């Protein structure tokens, strides 16, 4: 069974058609990149899938179930988690506490007024594991808001991972980063995909990252699917080149 199945999704804001009849299927274990010029509707598409708003038309199924009526938090509890283009962390909390909140939610402890020693130890172990996976172990007591951009991004990805998602959605994970930070994040994503077998859907502008990581690529332009296929097919597609060159010429 496909993990995510979007059929004929559209989203209109007044007279603006942000997403027009987009269909997409993601299989378990896949790493799918979504690319396209600015304003192509990539983030809007993420918002539809993650439940920030409802589609005007079309259906979205996750693990075979229709998730259209579910709010974003319910979709997260069903196994989807995402990061944002503009990094979203809890700035006044320590890095460890940022991740701890996510781990506690994932462990079903969100309403607990206290935790026993055993539960506390298992939360702490998971937090430590994620801190070290994200390369944040030596910054765990820093305020998350004081971290560098790249480290905030890593913290945000770790929070999403804490939820043990079956689908991880990353909205421009390397946006605004230098070469070294981009490389580090790309390596982290590759590791999550190859070694942990995580299914990932990501929006990305950096073509080196996209062509290095993705199993399949979907190209959006003006809200529509312009092309879809393996990286080599996309690289060779004249339609795609035209869209990008046309954008550059304009």
């Amino acid at each position: 069974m496909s993990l995510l199945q979007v059929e004929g999704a559209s989203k209109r804001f007044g007279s603006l058609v942000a997403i027009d009849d987009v269909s997409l299927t993601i299989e378990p274990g896949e790493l799918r990149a979504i690319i396209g010029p600015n304003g192509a509707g990539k983030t809007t598409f993420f918002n539809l899938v993650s439940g920030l708003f409802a589609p005007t038309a079309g259906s979205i199924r996750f693990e075979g179930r229709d998730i259209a009526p579910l709010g974003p938090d319910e979709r997260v509890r069903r196994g989807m988690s995402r990061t944002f283009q503009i990094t979203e962390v809890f700035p006044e909390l320590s890095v460890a506490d940022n991740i701890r909140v996510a781990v506690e939610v994932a462990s079903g402890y969100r309403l607990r007024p206290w935790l026993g020693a055993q539960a506390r130890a298992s939360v702490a172990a998971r937090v430590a594991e994620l801190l070290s996976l994200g390369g944040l172990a030596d910054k765990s007591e820093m305020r998350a808001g004081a971290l560098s951009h790249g480290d905030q991004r890593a913290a945000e990805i770790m929070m999403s991972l804490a939820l043990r998602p079956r689908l991880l959605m990353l909205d421009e994970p390397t946006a605004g980063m230098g070469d070294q930070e981009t490389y580090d994040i790309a390596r982290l994503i590759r590791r999550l995909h190859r070694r942990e077998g995580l299914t990932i859907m990501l929006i990305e502008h950096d073509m080196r990252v996209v062509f290095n990581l993705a199993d399949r690529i979907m190209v959006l332009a003006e809200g529509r699917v312009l092309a879809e296929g393996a990286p080599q097919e996309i690289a060779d597609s004249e339609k795609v080149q035209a869209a990008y060159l046309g954008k550059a010429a304009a």
Partner: protein
Amino acid sequence: MSPARARALDAAVCLLLLFMPFWMGAIGGYTELATRIVVMGLAAMSLNFLLGFTGVLSFGHAAYFGLGAYGAGMAIKYLGAGSIPAIGFGVVVATIAAMIIGALIIKLRGVYFAMVTIAFGQVFYFIAFRWNAVTGGDDGLSGWHRLPIDFGFARLDIFQNDKAFYYFALAIFAVCVGAMAVLLNSPFGRSLIAIRENERRARFLGLPIEFHVWLSFVISCLFVSVAGALYALLNNFTDPRALRFDLSGNLVIMAVLGGMRSFWGPLIGAAIFVALQDYVSSHTENWMSVIGLVFVLVVRFFPRGVLGMLRTGAKA
């Protein structure tokens, strides 16, 4: 604040509270003033559970303070209840009201939430104001007084002995504040702080925001109603001003004055507010203008409040 400094502050506050009736006299105060500080401190800290640690502003907490006060007063006056059952009655009434009203308004955010809390608060004010036969109307609910507590093996005369009542109030304060401290250090408390810090991120971690904010609102109202009930017992009287929106505003001022990001801040704010009110109002009717001036100066020079000055580092 480093953990060591936080522990030192906890200890200092506990010691000051424990001996307040004794040092209060030395600086020109009296026991009833000390009790008022503890009671209003509890109210401000309860409000701050919602304001400072969940990031939701309510301008209607006087309603639950007042419901606690009227509930306790009426339980004594009409049912002949003892002091502790009377407080319990007031708290149950106020908490049920908070559960219902909270459920109606929880979808609103920011200034809309604050406005609607005022509106609902005023409903209770006008009921107390108009329903003369039961509430005593504008004159207030009088003709009753708190009763000594009989433990069977011992009797605590909180009616005649004002120091006994202070320690009775302080014990209840300690239970409530201890419960809030435990909650704030729990996964549930962290979820509230997460909502304050970034509601969108919290939602996308799978937190049902509305339910958590509702629960925080109800908990906050529950503790503020304990303070209201104690306030009625302290005065052996309550009137519609205990429900009016200016009291809600004063609670917000106390929290901001002392520092709404720190646990003890609102208590310090309440102490400054109550002491100033007591001292200045014996000299001039316009005591509020002095409080206003102090408030403006604190907000201008210590935007994080009096206790906020001490605060550094990642501790929330």
